[in-house]
């Protein structure tokens, strides 16, 4: 293959020989006799490789190397040296030369060296392309460069231009709405509206009106006509989050809408057509919902055209630290604090935590730290107990066996198990009046901690929702977590 080679050699005789070598290998050679001429040429052209004599009149070869590096030129340089110029060759390699040839050298030696240099540049360019294309640590609202996320980014990019319905699955707190927004932003509809409806947050009798709108007088309290999300998303994307919470009646209306793009407002016989791309999401297993009869099979297949699975944070490797640092910077700025980073020990604990509440849980932990502390570096002391517990136990929510009565052991760690809100057997009961062994009696702060942490786990790491359910304020939870951190530390020291 023909490549353009810049030959920098002040000896016309040697230049003629090297040119003939390179041209015999099929390359196109541009020969110059000085460093100045070489730099001038590089301003205008980008040769596949440069063959550079280190001894030149005027600007020396090493100076040429320095300037090429300063200017960020990507040309691979092979330097020509002679015996006794070892120091110069070492310096040239330090400045970025890819190889060297020592005079006198033959055609085959030069050919192999130059072709290797060209190949190296081509491979570097390929790697750079792939890095640009695939190895991103940010993508729209996502932060993360792990392999599962790279894969997700590629799927989003591939699916976004289509109008096909996307079905996103993933645990709570993984970023399903972020994913839907990324699909919208990446699509040709990005100039249109992005309308999100959380089906779990709506009372069932209002869900239809929320999605399709209603006319005046459609039901008690419908004092005026209201546009629904389907109308508002016309020309854009309609994101239906927690679609598994939609009741079966409404599912049949949604099916018709998905099939035809048409719907009727509540209380109206008028059929309205819109151009909407539907993206839906659930944290449940949609097929299992179909098997249980909670989700229409025909709707499932209408919606499940392009499935996307968002990986849980515990499967995203170093993304935990990338995201933690990002939250730390964001909340430090927001709260006027001076945090700059985490200690290595702290990062180790964050990396080992299971993050059952995913990014939302991590966000809460970091925000908690920022709110309650003000130092340049986050230390282990500032971490909440739930993260510290991980350092000695395999799973985050598992309560220490010694403090959990056997009856509760089956529910520990599963947010779905509402009974986990109830702490271990009431410590108020006298040991003499029940068969609870003495070691099962736990300090009150631990009982409180277990109740609160269980509530947070139940709400997938959402502290405000857990606080509301416990009828306390979120700041109380943050304060208590901080105090437990100290108590757990004392307990470890006394043990």
């Amino acid at each position, binding site marked *: 293959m023909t490549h353009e080679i810049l030959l920098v050699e002040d000896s*016309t005789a*040697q230049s*003629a*020989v090297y040119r*003939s070598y390179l041209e*015999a290998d099929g390359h196109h050679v541009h020969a110059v006799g000085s460093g100045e001429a070489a730099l001038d040429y590089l301003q205008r052209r980008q040769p596949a490789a440069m063959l550079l*004599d280190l001894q030149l009149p005027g600007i020396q070869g090493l100076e040429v190397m320095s300037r090429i590096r300063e200017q960020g030129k990507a040309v691979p340089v092979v330097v020509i040296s*002679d015996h006794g110029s070892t120091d110069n060759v070492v310096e040239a390699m330090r400045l970025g030369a890819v190889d060297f040839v020592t*005079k006198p050298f033959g055609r*085959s030696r030069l050919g192999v060296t130059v072709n290797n240099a060209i190949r190296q540049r081509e491979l570097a360019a390929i790697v750079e392309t792939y890095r640009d294309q695939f190895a991103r640590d940010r993508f729209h609202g996502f932060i993360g460069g792990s392999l599962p996320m790279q894969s997700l980014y590629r799927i989003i990019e591939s699916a976004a231009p289509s109008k096909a319905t996307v079905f996103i699955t993933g645990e709570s707190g993984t970023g399903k709405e972020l994913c839907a927004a990324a699909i919208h932003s990446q699509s040709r509809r990005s100039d249109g509206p992005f309308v999100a409806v959380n089906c779990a947050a709506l009372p069932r009798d209002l869900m239809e009106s929320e999605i399709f709108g209603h006319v005046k007088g459609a039901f008690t309290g419908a004092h005026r006509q209201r546009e629904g999300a389907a109308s508002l998303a016309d020309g854009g994307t309609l994101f239906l989050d927690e679609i598994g919470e939609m009741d079966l009646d409404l599912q049949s209306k949604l099916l018709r809408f998905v099939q035809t793009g048409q719907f009727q407002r509540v209380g109206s016989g008028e059929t309205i057509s819109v151009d909407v791309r539907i993206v839906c999401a659930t944290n449940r297993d949609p097929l299992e919902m179909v098997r249980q009869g909670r989700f229409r099979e025909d709707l499932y297949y209408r919606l499940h055209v392009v499935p996307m699975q968002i990986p849980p944070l515990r499967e995203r490797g170093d993304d935990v630290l990338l995201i933690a640092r990002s939250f730390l910077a964001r909340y430090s700025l927001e709260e006027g604090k001076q945090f700059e980073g985490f200690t290595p020990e702290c990062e180790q604990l964050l990396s080992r935590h299971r993050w059952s509440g995913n990014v939302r849980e991590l966000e809460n932990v970091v925000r908690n730290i920022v709110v309650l502390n003000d130092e340049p570096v986050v230390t282990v002391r500032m971490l909440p107990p739930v993260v510290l517990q991980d350092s000695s136990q395999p799973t985050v929510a598992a309560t220490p066996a010694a403090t959990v009565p056997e009856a509760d052991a089956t529910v520990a760690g599963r947010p779905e198990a509402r009974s986990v809100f109830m702490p271990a057997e009431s410590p108020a009961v006298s040991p003499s009046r029940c068969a609870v062994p003495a070691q099962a009696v736990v300090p009150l702060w631990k009982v409180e901690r277990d109740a609160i942490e269980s509530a947070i786990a139940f709400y997938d790491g959402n502290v405000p929702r857990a606080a509301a359910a416990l009828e306390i304020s979120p700041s109380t939870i943050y304060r208590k977590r901080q105090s437990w951190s100290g108590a757990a530390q004392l307990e470890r020291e006394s043990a």
Partner: protein
Amino acid sequence: MNTIGTKGSDFGAPALIDDAAMAALAADVGANSLVTVLMAFSDELQRRVPVLQGAVDASDLVAIARETHSIKGSALTFGAAALGAAARRANDATRAGDSAVALFNAREVLALMPETREAVARLAAQTAEVQQS
């Protein structure tokens, strides 16, 4: 007296033109280019003689170093063994800062340059004749 096409004199001195090195060069550049590169070497030697002479006359070690470096590289590339060896000695002396030796060796280089140039020009002519016939 150095001769073309010998490995060296009876005293072990290098040949004016090393046959093996010249054959390797001819094979590498090809018959079509050999005359061109030989003439380029011949022209370069002619051009460098007054430059090196001026440096020697002025006892300019920096200029002697630069010229002998270039002559050494070209001479070794073209198998001009005697000239290459002399240029190397002169260049080494300049690096060592030994001006007396550098000047002595540079004069030796100057003495070998016309002789080498003639030998190279002769080879170029012979090669051209062979190509034409």
